[in-house]
């Protein structure tokens, strides 16, 4: 992989006097296998690479990228980035990250075992996943998708400010959408398992989850509109935390787009809420050794017992806010570094989901949500999302519910957290999940 760093070094060496240059060079090998009716429906295996070049000169920043490591195109890319810089407004805080002495942990995110796995072994997992879903319940009527996906990726970052970082990682997952039918009623359910090598994938659990989630919704009805206590499934909580992460980004704060901008040090959530962003936890799907500017990734406590402790920053937003980067530059090779949480989790409690359901008495278990991108406004905090799940009656799971929404505001939901489950789950996204109990949420239905 040092050849990527060599390419980055060569680009950086072309910097002119007074010019800061950053080169990000990546390469990936991705495999995606879709199975349908015990046959491979499609098998895609492809190598990709790219380079992104950022130039900062006289307080102006320019950027260009190319999806190739072809030497001639790289030359054009540097020239384009330079030219683009001429049009930016002078910004006194513009500039690349500088080495900050924080040691980069070796998280062992790259596994030779995945690189050495045969395509046949991967196909077998996807076939087994589909078979297991079909076998799980007689009411399983079809499989919308059953797939195996993996990625081997390497990246190198070099800058004129002395950063030279390399990293590589492997990841894989299996995922399936199952359909269950009874009479004319059809419902769907999702199941998955994530890991860094094949041995870490739990195909049986993924299949059982999908089958269970689809079959238990059979016969679902639209609930009446009312205010209730909801229990969010870990899968739903993770999506909620992913959204919350945006509001704690230093960029949103500095640009007046965060509803928490003026609230550092205040009680913004129930004392039960401790929110941590920790990409150095190797169990997280999005764990990483370094951030998008080549600084060491690190653990940041964002909300501690309900108190807002910290926003996350990249080099630019930190400089502008008069603080240090928290190692939260996020990017691909085709964009400049943004700021974002990388692996958010809520400090788990001890209760199982069943214990939480029992403690709630009456309410709704939300097993899936839809339309988060269209129904949640991260600037105003308005929250409204499509949902499906199960009625909780007398502390037990009861009849299934569908075609309703749950609504509140992000601000209120944080204060309305009344219990946090101990069932921490690692998911194929930048947040992990626990079962979460939130009071006083509006269900809109019939």
């Amino acid at each position, binding site marked *: 992989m040092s050849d990527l760093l060599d390419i980055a070094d060569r680009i950086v060496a072309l910097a002119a006097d007074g010019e800061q240059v950053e080169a990000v060079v990546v390469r990936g090998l991705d495999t995606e296998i879709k199975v349908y009716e015990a046959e491979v429906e499609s098998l895609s295996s492809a190598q990709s690479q790219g380079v992104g070049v950022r130039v900062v000169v006289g307080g102006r920043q320019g950027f260009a990228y*190319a999806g190739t490591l072809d030497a001639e195109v790289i030359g054009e890319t540097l020239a384009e980035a330079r030219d683009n810089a001429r049009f*930016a407004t002078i910004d006194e805080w513009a500039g690349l990250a500088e080495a900050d002495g924080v040691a980069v942990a070796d998280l062992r995110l790259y596994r030779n075992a995945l690189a050495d796995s045969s395509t046949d072994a991967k196909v077998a997992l996807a076939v087994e996943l589909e078979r297991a879903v079909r076998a799980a319940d007689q009411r399983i009527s079809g499989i919308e998708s059953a797939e195996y996906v993996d990625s081997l990726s390497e990246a190198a970052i070099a800058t004129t400010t002395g950063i030279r970082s390399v990293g590589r990682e492997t990841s894989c997952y299996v995922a399936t959408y199952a359909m269950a039918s009874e009479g004319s009623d059809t419902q769907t359910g999702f199941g998955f398992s994530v890991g860094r090598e094949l041995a870490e994938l739990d195909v049986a659990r993924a299949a059982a989850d999908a089958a269970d989630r689809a079959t238990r919704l059979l016969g679902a009805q639209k609930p009446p509109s009312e205010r209730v206590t909801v229990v969010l499934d870990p899968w739903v909580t993770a999506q909620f935390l992913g959204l919350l992460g945006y509001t704690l980004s230093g960029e949103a704060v500095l640009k007046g787009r965060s509803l928490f901008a003026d609230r550092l040090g205040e009680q913004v959530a129930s004392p039960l809420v401790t929110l941590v962003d920790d990409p150095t936890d190797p169990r997280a799907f999005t764990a990483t050794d370094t951030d998008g500017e080549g600084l060491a990734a690190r653990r940041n406590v964002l909300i501690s017992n309900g108190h807002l402790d910290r926003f996350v920053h990249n080099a630019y937003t930190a400089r502008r806010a008069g603080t240090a980067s928290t190692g939260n530059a996020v990017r691909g090779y085709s964009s400049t570094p943004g700021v974002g949480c990388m692996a958010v989790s809520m400090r788990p409690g001890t209760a199982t989901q069943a214990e939480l359901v029992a403690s709630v008495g009456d309410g709704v278990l939300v097993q899936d949500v839809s339309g988060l991108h269209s129904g949640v406004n991260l600037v105003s905090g308005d929250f409204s999302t499509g949902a499906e799940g199960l009625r909780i009656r007398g502390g037990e799971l009861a009849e299934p519910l569908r075609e309703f929404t749950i609504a509140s505001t992000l601000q209120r939901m944080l204060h309305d957290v009344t219990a946090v489950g101990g069932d921490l789950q690692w998911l194929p996204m930048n947040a992990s999940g626990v079962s979460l109990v939130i009071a006083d949420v509006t269900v809109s*239905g*019939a």
Partner: protein
Amino acid sequence: MIDEVVIDRVLATALRTGGDFAEVFAEDKRSSSALFDDEKVEELTSGRDRGAGIRVVVGDTTGFAHTADLTEAGLIAAADAAAAAARGGGGGTQVVALTRRTADRGYAIETYPEDVAKARKVELLTRADEVARATDGAITQVSVSYGDSRRRILVANSDGVLAADDTVRTFFAVSCVATGDTGMQTGRESIGHTVGFELFDMYDIEELASRAADRALVKLQARPAPSGQMPVVIASGGGGVLFHEACGHGLEADLVAKGASVFKGRVGERVASPGVTVVDDGTMQREWGNLAIDDEGNPAQRNVLIEDGYLSDYMWDLLRARKEGRASSGNGRRQSYQHLPMVRMTNTYLLAGHDDPDAIVASTDKGVLVKHLGGGQVNTATGDFVFGMTEAYLIEGGKITEPLREGNLIGNGPEVLQRIDALGNDFAMGPPGTCGKDGQGVPVGDGVPTLRVSSLTIGGTAA
């Protein structure tokens, strides 16, 4: 992009293990964008993506590989990989006679964005920011973005198809934050067409900027949206995404074939109210979802999906159509050469009816008027779908009264299609969209006249 003789050799390699079908899709895309945010030209970005995807079909199995290396050696290596992935049985030499298809979109690009000075693009951003901020002191943040792309593609396959296209798209958006006693609200306006820099002759940027600002300002006075079922009036041009989600995805032949659509087996049946005609039309000139050919080399078409309430046909890509022994409907699309094509919409719209739009509101006793929809999502197997309202008002006694805060609406596709009880005579296309099926983004357009759904669930918090 690639010589015909090289294509012949690559297709022959792809079929060496006995594939039934092979295809080369080459792409060279240049894009540029500019972002003005927080009172600064934050950055200009230039991008170049070039490569080829090769697929081989053996029976029901598709093998796919892509490469950024467009030399013959690079293409042959990818063809080998795709053939190995598909794992054919027999083998042998196949010769393909390629016939060039012409791709004509019926209009010409007037000004290629690459010929426009970057300074001119930056001027537009600055101007929009000034106008939005001048609208009202409560506008506290403005972000303006510009983007253009030129995508050249070449598709050749073992059926002898050889087709190429050159597509230019230009985009512009303004987003505002307004701050008041009730917190912050946002407003956004965007325009995008399959045209060059003449986009800015078609629209007044200053008007666009002030509309975005107004949308945020109006919501500072907004009350929480209601919770529960009531009539919903969708304004002309503002809500085509309703049909994209309520029935569009469910009419994609790949989902239908897997039984993952509530519209499976319903061709010829009544699925919507009389007067409801839904069309997907890749040939709509200059619209955001316009195509000359799709990403499998088939000419774009105008396809009637629902005619006067009756389901007439699904949308098809090449693989699904081959299986059914019919022609593709020109709906095979992909995000880039790194992706396999699948059935996708282009410009999806509902034809106008005869009702007076004002009368539709006036005849609604209590309901919601949605002027502008955000995105949406559908579960095609159950038909349940949601879409967000980014500008909406309460209707009381046939009059538009108070503005509402944002939220999702939820409904069931087949039910909602049957509940359309008024159709305006004022059709308009809406803003540009990106459809994200299976994680692949492609540009799509949509349009509707003013219409009313007799009952939909509004996902607000107010009683």
